[in-house]
C-alpha cells in the first residue's frame, strides 16, 4: 500500500520541553532533545529504546502515539504528519495502525470492568465489527495470537488473572485492529521473571508472523539484546548511541552506553560478589536535572 520510499514511521529531530516551576522560577526541562529515528515499511523490526528513568523514553513514546505534541520537529506515520491529524476519521485511522501497550497491566485495566469489554470495544471501534458474533470472533482471534482464548477470559475481571495473563490480554487488545506498529512502554518490567520470557517471545512472534513493527521501550539491556533488531540509547533526552542491537550492546562506544552495560547485574557474576571498589570512586550516575 505504501510507496516504496515512504517509511512506516519517521521521527525527525523532535524536541519536547516541559515548563516547570511557578511564575517566579520558571524553567524548561528538555525531556526529549533532538531525537530522530526511522522504521521502514515492509520490513518489520523491533526497535528498542533504552535508558534510565528521566531519559525521556516514555515522552518519546507518547509523542509517537500522538498523545503528546512535540515542541519542535515532526513525526510522520506513513508520510503523514501525526500532529496534523484533525478529523476524527483520520484519528481513528491512525489509532488503528498504531497501538500502545503499557507498563503495568494491573493499572491498565479498570478493575470494575470485565476484561473482555476492552477487547470488544477495540473490535467495535477499530476493526469495524458490528454484530456480537463478529467482534467475539475478532477478540478470539487476537487472543489466540497471544496463546489464550476467549473462553478463558470471557466475563473475568482483572483481579482474577495473573500479571502475565493480563499483559497478554493487553497485547491481544492491541492486536485486535491489526496494527502495523506497536509501542510497548516497559511491557515486562511488572511481570514475574518466570513469565517474562513468554511475553518477550511473543513480541518476536508478532514481528515474524504478523509483520508488526515494535518500538520496545525498556531499561533492561538483556531482553533488548535478546529480541531487538536495532537499539537507540537515550540519556537525558538525547539519543547518544544507536545502531544494530548486537553491534551496539556487544561493543558500546558512548560512555553512557558503557556505564549502562556495566550496571547490568548478570547471574553469571555468581561466585565473585561485587567488591566495594565497584561502586566506590565512581560518581553516582544519577540524572535528575536535565535543566536548560
Amino acid at each position, binding site marked *: 500500500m505504501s510507496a516504496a520510499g515512504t517509511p512506516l514511521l519517521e521521527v525527525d529531530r523532535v524536541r519536547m520541553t516541559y515548563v516547570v516551576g511557578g511564575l517566579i522560577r520558571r524553567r524548561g526541562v528538555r525531556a526529549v532533545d533532538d531525537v530522530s529515528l526511522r522504521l521502514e515499511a515492509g520490513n518489520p523490526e523491533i526497535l528498542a529504546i533504552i535508558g534510565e528513568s528521566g531519559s525521556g523514553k516514555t515522552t518519546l513514546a507518547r509523542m509517537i502515539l500522538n498523545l503528546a505534541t512535540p515542541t519542535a520537529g515532526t513525526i510522520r506515520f506513513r508520510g503523514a504528519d501525526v500532529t496534523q491529524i484533525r478529523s476524527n476519521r483520520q484519528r481513528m485511522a491512525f489509532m488503528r495502525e498504531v497501538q500502545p501497550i503499557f507498563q503495568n497491566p494491573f493499572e491498565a485495566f479498570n478493575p470494575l470492568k470485565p476484561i473482555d469489554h476492552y477487547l470488544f470495544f477495540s473490535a467495535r471501534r477499530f476493526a469495524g465489527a458490528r454484530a456480537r458474533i463478529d467482534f467475539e470472533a475478532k477478540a478470539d482471534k487476537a487472543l489466540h495470537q497471544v496463546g489464550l482464548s476467549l473462553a478463558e477470559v470471557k466475563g473475568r475481571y482483572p483481579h482474577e488473572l495473573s500479571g502475565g495473563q493480563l499483559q497478554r490480554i493487553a497485547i491481544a487488545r492491541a492486536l485486535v485492529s491489526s496494527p502495523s506498529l506497536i509501542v510497548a512502554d516497559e511491557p515486562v518490567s511488572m511481570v514475574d521473571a518466570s513469565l517474562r*520470557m513468554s511475553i518477550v517471545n511473543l513480541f518476536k512472534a508478532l514481528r515474524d508472523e504478523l509483520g508488526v513493527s515494535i518500538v520496545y521501550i525498556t531499561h533492561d539491556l538483556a531482553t533488548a539484546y535478546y529480541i531487538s533488531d536495532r537499539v537507540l540509547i537515550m540519556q537525558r533526552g538525547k539519543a547518544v548511541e544507536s545502531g544494530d542491537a548486537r553491534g551496539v*550492546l556487544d561493543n558500546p562506544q558512548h560512555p553512557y552506553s558503557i556505564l549502562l552495560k556495566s550496571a547490568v547485574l548478570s*547471574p553469571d557474576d555468581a561466585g565473585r560478589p561485587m567488591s566495594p571498589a565497584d561502586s566506590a570512586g565512581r560518581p553516582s550516575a544519577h540524572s*535528575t536535572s536535565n535543566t536548560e
Partner: protein
Amino acid sequence: MSPAGPFSAAPERVLTVRDLRAYYRTKYFGISREVRAVDGISLHVDRNEIYGLAGESSCGKTTLIKTIVRAIRPPLDVVGGSVTFHFAGRDRDIHALNDSELESIRWRHLSYILQGSMNVLNPVRRVRQSFVDFAHRHIGKPMPEFLRHVESHLARVRLEPAALDAYPHELSGGMRQRVTIALATVCRPDFIVADEPTTALDVVVQKDVLGMLREVQQEIRSSMILVTHDIGVHANITDRLGIMYAGRLAEEGRTVDVIRDPRHPYTSHLVTSLPRIGDVTQRRGLEGAPPNLAVPPTGCRFHPRCPLAMATCRAEPPPMVDVAPGHRVACWVTAPPDKPVTVQ
C-alpha cells in the same frame, strides 16, 4: 550440622528458623479461608552473611520476612514453628517476647528495610527528624553528638550532611533509598532484613545502592536477609541463596552453587530463562500460573508446572535433601532421598 565450607570454622548462628508456618486466615459469613503463605520453612543465617531469598510474586517471600521480624497483623497468623535470634550472647525467640523486649531489640539489633522504602520517610518532616524519631533513643547520646554520629554514618552511603535538612521529596529515588539504608544501619544492628531494597530503582542506581549496602554490611559486620526476585542481584551480593516456591523452600545453598548448578527444576528454569547480553539462544517462559495458596497443589507444589513431574510428585511433598555440603533441594526427581532425610 553446619555446612562445611572453607570459611566456616565456627560460624556463629544469628538466626534460626524452624519449620515456620504462617497462614492468612479469614472468616466471613461462616466461610473460612486459609492461605498458606509460609508452610514449613527452616533456614539459618550466620554472622556477617547475606542470605538471599528469591521467588516469583505471591510465593510468600514477604510473608516469611514479616514473620521473621514479627511485623504480623491479622489475618496473618503464625501457626507453628519458631524464629530464634542470637543477639548479644542470648537466644531470643522473637514470637515469645513481650512488647517492651521487642522494642528493645528493634533497630538496635534488628532492622528492616521495607519494600518501596523510598516512601517510608515522613513527607512533612525533614530527614534529620526521621533519624531522631527512629534512632535517637536507641543510641542514647546527647543530641549534638548523635547528629554528628548520623552525619558520619551518612558519609558511608556517600550522602552529604546537607541531606539531613532536606525533605524527602527534594531527594531523588536513589538518595532516598540511601537514606533508608543509613536509617536501618545507623544503630549498627546485628541483623538487617531488606525486602526488595532496589526494585524501584534504575539499573544504574541499583548497582551503586547494592554496592553501598554490601559495604555498610561488611563494615558493621551484620547479617542480612535480602529478598528480591532478581537473580542477577542475588548473584552479585548474596552469599547463600534460598529459592522459594509457593510457600516452601525449593532449594538452598551457596549462591554460586545454586546458580551454577541448580538442582530443582524450578531453579533451573529461573536461571536458564534469563536472557544474557551476548547470547541470543531461544529462552522459554514457564507455562502455567503460580498456584493459589488457598488450595495448594497436592504433593510437590511445583508439579503442575514441572517438566519432570512423576506420580510420586503428585502424591507426597518432597523432603529437603542434602545434595552437596550446604546445598539442599526438595525434589523427588533430582534429589531422591536415598540418604536419611535432613532434620528439619
